[in-house]
């Protein structure tokens, strides 16, 4: 029984800067400029999800899941530790929107997040199989590692799509 996923496994909610590793469903609600990144190992039907807020940690180490440059190496380390093959991992990226058209400085965080996530993944040799990023739209993202690594995205207007 222990190896069998239950019929209705509990969905883990992943808040800003948090991450989870496993085969249970995982969800981030209301992504704006943040990124929901999933890494999936098709052989083990397991994976990881993280809710990234900013591109660079600037040397901060207390919340590694919050920054693209620290979150991705951390997920790889965790997946390595449970025996996942890095070469086989499939990445999907959602979020990185620009919810407000103009606000003085520091723009556009959504775009910078997306670019940083792509470049770190590339550096580390992880393939990105699908993306749903940018625009001026909020997204809730659910990741189903036990179900082929499906990623489903819902928008505020109720439109859903799959990655």
């Amino acid at each position, binding site marked *: 029984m222990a190896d069998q996923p239950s019929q209705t496994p509990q969905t883990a909610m992943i808040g*800003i800067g948090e991450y989870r590793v496993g085969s249970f469903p995982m969800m981030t609600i209301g992504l704006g400029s943040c990124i929901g990144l999933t890494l999936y190992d098709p052989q083990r039907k397991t994976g990881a999800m993280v809710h990234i807020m900013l591109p660079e940690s600037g040397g901060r180490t207390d919340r590694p899941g919050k920054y693209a440059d620290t979150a991705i190496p951390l997920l790889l380390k965790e997946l390595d530790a449970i025996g996942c093959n890095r070469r086989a991992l499939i990445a999907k990226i959602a979020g990185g929107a620009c919810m*407000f058209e103009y606000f003085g400085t520091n723009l556009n965080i959504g775009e910078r997040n997306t670019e940083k996530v792509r470049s770190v993944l590339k550096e580390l040799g992880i393939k990105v199989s699908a993306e749903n990023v940018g625009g001026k739209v909020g997204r809730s993202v659910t990741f189903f590692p036990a179900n082929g690594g499906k990623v489903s995205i819902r928008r505020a207007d109720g439109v859903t799509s799959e990655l």
Partner: protein
Amino acid sequence: MKLSAVQADAIQELGNIGAAHAATTLSQMLSSTVSMSVPAIKTIDLSELGNHLGEESAAMVVFELQGEIQHGGYIIFYITKESAIRLTNTMLGMTDMDRDFTEMDQSALLEVGNIMVSAFLDATAELLGFIMLPSPPALSIDMAHAAMESLIAQLGEEVDEVLLFSTELICEEHKIDSDIIMLPEISTLKRITELLEEMMKST
């Protein structure tokens, strides 16, 4: 930044005064009674923002706090989509509730938000002798969490928790439910609490 009980009380009073002025302007625009809640102050860890704001679709008119402090944080007029439509209807004397949210609603929201937030900040400036001016407004009509996390991301890398203080403004006659939410940047919050503490000492 941890607020002492005295600081929290002082900020609550400040929010009370600001929101009361905003409520008065809303009441004038609607020609109806507007009641307000006691201002709530919440310190929220980023990872738990989802417990406070979710996927519900809301309209948020957002102003950056400027003036004596640059990039001082944000002040937000928050209203559900249904309430926003009722707001426009009431102001323009229309009754059709089964319509979509249109550009007309957007303009009305920006205008109402502008007037209310200006009233809020005028009142706090008068009390504190510290001028915060609203930037031009930006509007998001989408998941509340998505809009708020995007604002928090702009506050900087080192922000792990935020202080939100919000006051609910309700017009029962027209079933309009809205909030004024302030999301001060840490230096703004420090400045405000210092000024409030000085005021309390001198009285």
